[in-house]
């Protein structure tokens, strides 16, 4: 019974934890512009994140080593450092976007300008990172994030023709008036939103924080293979309601309120309130995860003590990095830069940085020295090699596409 509870809790947390500001903005934006013609990109990203997270989780459970610990070990100190700098910048950019997302969500709830919410959000984040236990922090935000199921309810209440929706997904057709390059630029954005590197830093470091062993492999896999697909289903619901309500009215998404608008149309004020609660929980949870991931990656590269399973004094440098990252990210949000724009760039840069950490994990998960009998099976290796190609192609294509389309204009 206790076991069943733990498994259910893990899955629910994975669903709520899957969606962050990147998924909210990108799915709303793409749904309003491209309908469901880009759902395939979310699905490709979903398979990718499942493979990547399963490998990292297995490596963490079997060897007790988290992702960045191994990145340096496989790539050496020089390439590892370059990798650390790139990954840290992308995670920091995502952290900035999430803090902006919390403030924007609070603005939706209160009509008080988001900039006034930023310091409060930062203070609350810092307190949570400093004092709240890892499991409480992970479960709390994940469970509250389930409020986003309201997007599924809204989709159902809009009484769409599900047959025609499914047809749009299976036979993707670029809408007239959108360029081919723009179409593929947003495909990469959706791919990056689903497959953000911090999710894996957090997942594998969390495995070490919670002292996973080989016995926990089953639970970890279940979280990934059940929780993530359900989380991706939520993302697709966000795109679908935008396609149904916003696209026919030619409303383009350039703020968070427009992402929630279809829910208000379908379910009224109460639905909107639940959606906003989901936004706050999802962005707050993701801000915790990205903030910790900033600390995890630096501490793991240098071999410092990290994690919330020890007293802050025993992991002094880790907590210092987390604190400085928070101050820096908050400072960037306070420059009045548009958080939605930051989010749009953060998902594309996530796709660009992905090969840097994916490749070392793929190598380690095949290394018997670390993994013993738990090395990748043939199917996993075949799939993850195909994904290595996809990830590299997406990363290489992202910057030229960004320049040619002026970031999707």
């Amino acid at each position: 019974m206790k076991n069943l509870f733990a498994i259910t809790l893990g899955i629910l947390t994975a669903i709520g934890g899957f969606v962050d500001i990147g998924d909210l903005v990108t799915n709303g934006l793409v749904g309003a512009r491209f309908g469901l013609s880009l759902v395939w990109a979310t699905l490709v990203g979903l398979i990718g994140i499942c493979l990547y997270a399963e490998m990292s989780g297995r490596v963490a459970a079997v060897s007790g080593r988290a992702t960045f610990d191994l990145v340096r070990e496989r790539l050496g100190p020089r390439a590892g450092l370059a990798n650390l700098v790139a990954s840290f910048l992308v995670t920091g950019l995502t952290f900035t976007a999430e803090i902006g997302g919390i403030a924007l969500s609070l603005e939706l709830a209160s009509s008080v300008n988001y900039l006034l919410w930023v310091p409060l959000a930062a203070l609350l984040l810092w307190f949570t990172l400093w004092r709240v236990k890892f499991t409480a922090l992970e479960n709390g935000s994940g469970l509250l994030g389930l409020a986003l199921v309201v997007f599924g309810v809204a989709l159902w209440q809009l009484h769409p023709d599900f047959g025609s929706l499914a047809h749009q997904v299976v036979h993707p057709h670029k809408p007239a008036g959108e360029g081919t390059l723009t179409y593929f630029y947003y495909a990469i954005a959706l791919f990056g939103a689903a497959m953000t590197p911090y999710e894996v830093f957090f997942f594998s470091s969390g495995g070490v924080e919670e002292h996973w062993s080989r016995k926990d492999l089953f639970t970890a896999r279940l979280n990934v293979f059940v929780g993530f697909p359900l989380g991706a289903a939520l993302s697709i619901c966000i795109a679908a309601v935008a396609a149904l309500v916003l696209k026919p009215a030619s409303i383009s998404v350039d703020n968070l309120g427009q992402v929630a608008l279809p829910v208000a149309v379908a379910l009224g004020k109460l639905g909107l309130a639940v959606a906003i609660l989901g936004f706050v929980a999802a962005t707050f949870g993701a801000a915790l995860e990205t903030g910790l991931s900033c600390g995890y990656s630096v501490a793991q590269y240098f071999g410092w003590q990290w994690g919330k399973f020890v007293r802050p004094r025993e992991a002094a440098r880790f907590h210092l990095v987390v604190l400085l990252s928070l101050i820096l990210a908050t400072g960037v949000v306070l420059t009045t830069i548009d958080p939605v724009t930051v989010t749009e760039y953060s998902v594309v840069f996530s796709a660009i940085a992905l090969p840097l950490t994916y490749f070392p994990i793929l190598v380690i998960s095949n290394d018997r020295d670390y993994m013993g009998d738990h090395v990748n099976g043939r199917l996993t290796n075949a799939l993850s090699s195909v994904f290595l190609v996809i990830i590299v192609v997406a990363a290489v294509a992202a910057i030229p596409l960004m320049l040619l389309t002026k970031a999707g204009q």
Partner: protein
Amino acid sequence: MSDQPAGRVLDLNLHLLDRQVVDTEGLLVCKVDDLELEPGENGALYVTAILVGPRALGSRIGGRLGRWIMSIASRQATTPPPRIDMSRVRAIASAVTLDAHRADLGVAPLDDWVDRHIISRIPGSRHESE
């Protein structure tokens, strides 16, 4: 490596360098930033110590960045670079396990400084999370 721990022959690049070092209680100490090698009587090279810190790491990062790290670090330093003698290594697996306490090794002066001047001054730093 003949005297410690069981005279194993290792590919240093693959099995020792950049590995996580863990103390007797499982606390993380540092990475194997570099190694101290000394020739034995038979002419073979033996690993005598794990070298730790920016001066050891800088020489392996190399290039202009590596020299820059080393020059900054040696300007700050008053003592020789921290080292952990191989006699303190108990096991080499996915981590290098020591039979010593992290606090007794004195390999992380920066950590002590950050702890004393910043982290310990924030309320709640001595307690586990709740």
